[in-house]
């Protein structure tokens, strides 16, 4: 498609014993088995699956944080599968990430101001600290944080505020693509609503492409255009949210959707569907 931004084909990742001297090459366990995924410019794509589905690994591979064992990744038309550190540097601004736990991804010894200003200077988006601060203030306004947040530390903020800082840090670099990995999973529903609302508006305003990793299908349905359903390192189903949620093609997708408890009284729900036992020891 003409407006593809990020395209991965046949992506495979192995973890564990990397190619050490003594380790046999084929012994590293595969966690992704040939995944195809594409995210269009300005498009919001949900990546859903249960634990062990490989959704986080897929996200990390897309950003070049883990080296794929096979497959290719194209960003804005160029092959970025195996770039060295130097060649990857300009990409780092254009592809950003918002992490699951803002507490552990924000350095507790740096003020929020430093956390936000430094990348702006590093990537040359402002010539002086003062100019960088002006940029940061604008983004703080936009994400609904008071400007004096720059003088505070991450531990002084609430979970929702920290996640706004995480969003601010990503968007202040004016990226084209943002990966968000389970960014609302620890938040209360009212805080979650605010954060998702903000993210939805920002993707629209900035024409930002978003890969939104989540275990929560209701959240994905409410903010994504397309969804990719993963299970055990493979894509089980992929398509527009409207179609996938109304008429899932894969039995696994149907089971996932049926397992979501909606806040409505439905006495037959507990007895319906979902395997009775998954004796797995994993």
């Amino acid at each position, binding site marked *: 498609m003409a407006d593809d931004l990020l395209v991965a084909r046949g992506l495979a990742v192995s973890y564990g014993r990397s190619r050490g001297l003594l380790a046999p090459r084929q012994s590293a366990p595969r966690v992704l088995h040939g995944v195809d995924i594409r995210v269009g410019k300005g498009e919001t794509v949900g990546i859903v699956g*249960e*634990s062990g589905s490989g959704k986080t690994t897929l996200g990390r591979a897309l950003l070049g944080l883990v080296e794929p064992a096979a497959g290719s990744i194209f960003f804005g038309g160029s092959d970025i599968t195996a770039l060295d550190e130097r060649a990857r540097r300009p990409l780092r601004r254009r592809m950003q990430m918002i992490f699951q736990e803002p507490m552990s991804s924000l350095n507790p010894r740096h003020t929020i101001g430093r956390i936000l200003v430094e990348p702006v200077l590093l990537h040359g988006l402002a010539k002086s600290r003062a100019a960088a601060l002006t940029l940061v203030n604008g983004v703080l306004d936009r994400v609904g944080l008071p400007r004096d947040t720059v003088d505070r530390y991450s531990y002084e903020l609430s979970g929702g505020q920290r996640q706004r800082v995480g969003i601010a840090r990503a968007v202040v670099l004016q990226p084209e693509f943002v990966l968000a990995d389970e960014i609302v999973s620890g938040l*209360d*529903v*009212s*805080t*979650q*609503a*605010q954060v*998702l*609302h903000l993210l*939805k508006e920002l993707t629209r305003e900035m024409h930002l492409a978003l890969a939104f990793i989540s*275990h*929560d*299908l*209701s*959240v*994905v*349905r*409410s*903010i994504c255009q397309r969804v990719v359903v993963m299970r055990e390192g493979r894509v089980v189903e992929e398509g527009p*949210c409207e179609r996938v*949620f109304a008429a899932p093609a894969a039995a696994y997708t149907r*089971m*996932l*959707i049926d*397992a*979501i*408890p*909606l*806040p*409505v*009284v*439905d006495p037959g*729900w*507990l*007895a319906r*569907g*979902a*395997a*009775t*036992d*998954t*004796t*797995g*020891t*994993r």
Partner: protein
Amino acid sequence: MNAPRLAVRDLSAVSLRDGNRPILRGVSLSVDIGEVHGIVGESGAGKSTLAKAILGIIPSQVKLTGGSIEFEGRDLLTLSPRALRAVLGRDIALVPQDPSTALNPSRRIDAQLTDGLRRKRGLSVRQARRRARALLEEVQIRDPERVLTSYPHQLSGGMRQRVLIAAAFGLEPKLVIADEPTTALDVTVQKQILRLIRSLQERHGTSVLFVSHDLGVVAKICDRLTVLYMGRVMEQGSTADVLTAPRHAYTKALLAANPRYDRPDTGLEPTSPELIAALRAEIAAFDAGVAEPRRG
């Protein structure tokens, strides 16, 4: 007889570390025999303090300042430590939130399951082992022998939660406190666990106090609900009434913030500043009323 199994009356608690900040503000609720009663609320609502107070395990920085917790007519807060211990563990059991930290990592499942049976039920080693096996079968574990000889890390999260449910229901308690028992689990496993808790509860006539932040989960398993906000009861009623015809604006706001895959255009509605102000005023009015009780 219609006396409830558990009756919490006007329970209040403060945080000593935080300048006597109230954590529970005159909470009253009752759980009938065979009822699953849901406590819902966001973080800071006091759900967990309430559960801990009933279990007699409130942390040292929390102080109960008033009210009573009556279990089968006896106030647990006035029992001697010895009498309390007899009730807890035997008549009241806990299904904890995080199945990965609630089990001792260095002991096999059989040792952990038989402890309680021997101590609280007076079974012999062999009887306890037989009972443990039966319990694992009751929570639908297909290969109980293998699980019994496993260490917790060898089991999946869902499997560990089944073991903990077996441990809780195994002593045939009259009341089970389930504290966010499915929060750490995948949705398909969550559904199995909810089904399991409900079927065990129905079979044994157990009362359950089910603590959760998830309106969807409580909708599926609870008979009645209590909605908490900042330690204050906002609304109480049958699950159907609370969810389909909420009376309190806070309950309405919670439902409106909740995303739903079947209604993608609703949900995600941020709570209005007006509502937050009104809630704060309601809480402040309650606190003022406590500080200066009205005369007459």
